[in-house]
C-alpha cells in the first residue's frame, strides 16, 4: 500500500480503557499521525471510544471512530485495510488483538504496551514476532510519549 496517492491510512485499536493513560496516549498518537499526513481511524469498544470523544469534544483530533468488533470484521472481509495499525495493549487480550491485526492488515502493525505487566506482555509479543514498543505507564503517560513520537517518525519516514 506504500504506492498509494491518497493519504496513508492509520488505524488505532484501543484496548480495555481501565488503564488511565490509554485515552490521552491515543489522542497524542492521533495528533502525531495526523500531522504526518495520515488519515486516522480509532476503533474501540463503546467505553474506550466515549473516553476519547469526551476528551476531545470539539473533534479537533478525533474525527473517525469505529466499533472494534466491526473493524475486525471489516479487516477480515477485506473491506478495510491500513498502512499502519497501532494496537494498545495492557493485558493478554491486547496481544490477541495485535496478533489478529498482524494477520489481517497488509501494512505494518505495532503494539503499544503499557500498564503494569509490560515486560511479560512484551516478551509474549517478541516470542510471536509481533513488533512493539513498551513502557511501564499506568497513570502518567510520559514514559511512553517519546517512544510513540519516535515510532511515528520512523513510520512516516518509511512512507516517503
Amino acid at each position, binding site marked *: 500500500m506504500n504506492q498509494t496517492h491518497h493519504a496513508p491510512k492509520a488505524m488505532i485499536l*484501543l*484496548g*480495555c480503557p*481501565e488503564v488511565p493513560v490509554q485515552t490521552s496516549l491515543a489522542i497524542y498518537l492521533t495528533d502525531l499521525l495526523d500531522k504526518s499526513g495520515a488519515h486516522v481511524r480509532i476503533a*474501540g*469498544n463503546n467505553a*474506550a471510544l466515549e473516553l476519547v470523544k469526551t476528551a476531545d469534544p470539539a473533534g479537533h483530533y478525533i474525527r473517525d471512530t469505529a466499533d*472494534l*468488533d466491526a473493524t*475486525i*470484521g471489516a*479487516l*477480515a*472481509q477485506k473491506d478495510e485495510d491500513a498502512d499502519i495499525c497501532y494496537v494498545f495493549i495492557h*493485558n*493478554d*487480550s*491486547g*496481544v*490477541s*488483538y495485535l*496478533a*489478529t491485526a498482524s*494477520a*489481517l492488515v497488509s501494512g505494518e502493525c505495532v503494539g503499544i504496551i503499557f500498564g503494569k505487566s509490560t515486560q511479560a506482555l512484551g516478551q509474549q509479543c517478541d516470542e*510471536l514476532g509481533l513488533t512493539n514498543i513498551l513502557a511501564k505507564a499506568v497513570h502518567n503517560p510520559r514514559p511512553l510519549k517519546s517512544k510513540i513520537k519516535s515510532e511515528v517518525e520512523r513510520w512516516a519516514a518509511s512512507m516517503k
Partner: protein
Amino acid sequence: MGCIDEMKYEVLLSKVTFKECAAYLNSNYNELYNVQPGYHMFDVFIIGVPPIYVGVDGDNIIFPYTKPCHGTFVLNINSPEEVERLKKTASKVK
C-alpha cells in the same frame, strides 16, 4: 448464522489467557481444527494468536471468544451447521 448472545451456549472457561485456552482445547478434544485470525463463526470474527484451535464434539463446536476487557472465554455451542462449515473450511489438526 446466529448471534451468540441469542444462542444457548456453555462457558467452559472464562477470563483465561489465550495460551491457556489453546492448551485446554488441545488436551480436551480429540477432533481439533486450526483457523486463521478473523475466522467468521456465528456473528463473530475470531480473535487470537495463531494457532487458533477450534474443537468439535459431535454437533458441538468449542471455540475461543476474546473480549478486550475480560480476556478469553471458551464457549461450547451446539451447531451442526457451524461444525459442517468448519470441517470444510479449516485445517484439521487431529
